[in-house]
């Protein structure tokens, strides 16, 4: 019905005033890039984080092509990861994102996509810090 289709105030806000849209230098050693897609709806989401020497996320950017809820979820995700350590950011749950944005059940997968994007970006960052581990994993 109408309630299910209406975008929440929070989602509209992120859609009209998205925070942190853009790109970071994916070749920089302290930048982690996560690129994820939702096959059921065809949304794509790129989330990048810049981490300082103390393991703290100092900058984040996103680019999302998809529905308003997906855009809002990734926008919120970039806001939330800033200032957190890598391990703290890994604790961000899709349910928290969905709650903050008042996402209806049919859009819960958008918040899941954002959580997956955060994890992918951080995994990429970690991999870049430890190239030896990468080589060892390749040889294994």
């Amino acid at each position, binding site marked *: 019905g109408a309630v299910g289709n209406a975008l929440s105030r929070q989602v509209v806000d992120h859609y009209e005033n998205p925070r942190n849209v853009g790109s970071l230098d994916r070749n920089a050693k302290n930048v982690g890039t996560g*690129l*994820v897609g939702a096959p*059921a709806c*065809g949304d*794509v989401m790129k989330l990048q984080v810049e981490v300082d020497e103390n393991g703290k996320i100092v900058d984040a950017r996103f*680019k999302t*092509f998809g529905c308003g809820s997906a855009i809002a979820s990734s926008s919120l995700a970039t806001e939330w990861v800033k200032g957190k350590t890598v391990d703290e950011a890994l604790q961000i749950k899709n349910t928290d994102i969905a709650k903050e944005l008042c996402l209806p059940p049919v859009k819960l997968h958008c918040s899941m996509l954002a959580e997956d994007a955060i994890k992918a970006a951080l995994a990429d960052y970690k991999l870049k810090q430890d190239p030896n581990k990468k080589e060892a994993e390749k040889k294994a």
Partner: protein
Amino acid sequence: FCPGCRALQPPGPRPDLFRLMECDRSFRIDVQQLQRRFRSLQRAVHPDRFGQRPPKEQFYSEQHSSLINKAYQTLLNPLSRGLYLLELNGVEPAQETDCDADSVFLTEIMEINEKLAEPKNEDILEEIETLIKVKQEELTKEVTAAFERDDLQEAKKLLAKMKYFANLEDKLKNKKIPS
């Protein structure tokens, strides 16, 4: 229609859309035959033909007409046809987030999206339109082959890719509408 009194009956529960349109349950279809069947079915059940009939039959005619529209649209479009076939075979469409394994593909989708988001440029739009069409044709061929050798998991993966391109196609159409 009731064989005795020729009154229109309601559609059966959970109809098989392939059977309804008299098509073999396969990904490969004869589009012209599908269109002929669509037109002849609509001629028989369209609400315009039931203006003088009792309200119950008018209602059934609307249901039939809707169902035939739905069947036609589902089977005409390769993506929806493929997804429907998966459903009939008890295979759920892809739900898991695509990430590492598909980064080359996702990067490509991202790049096309970024180009589309740029200010309207006729030449670039044409380029993108051609690219999308070519990719969709390629994928349709691969999906046909996958279904033919009964590889439903591969069909599922390929249909997921088709979904991304279907979205791009919609965005392109919207971009071409004069603002």
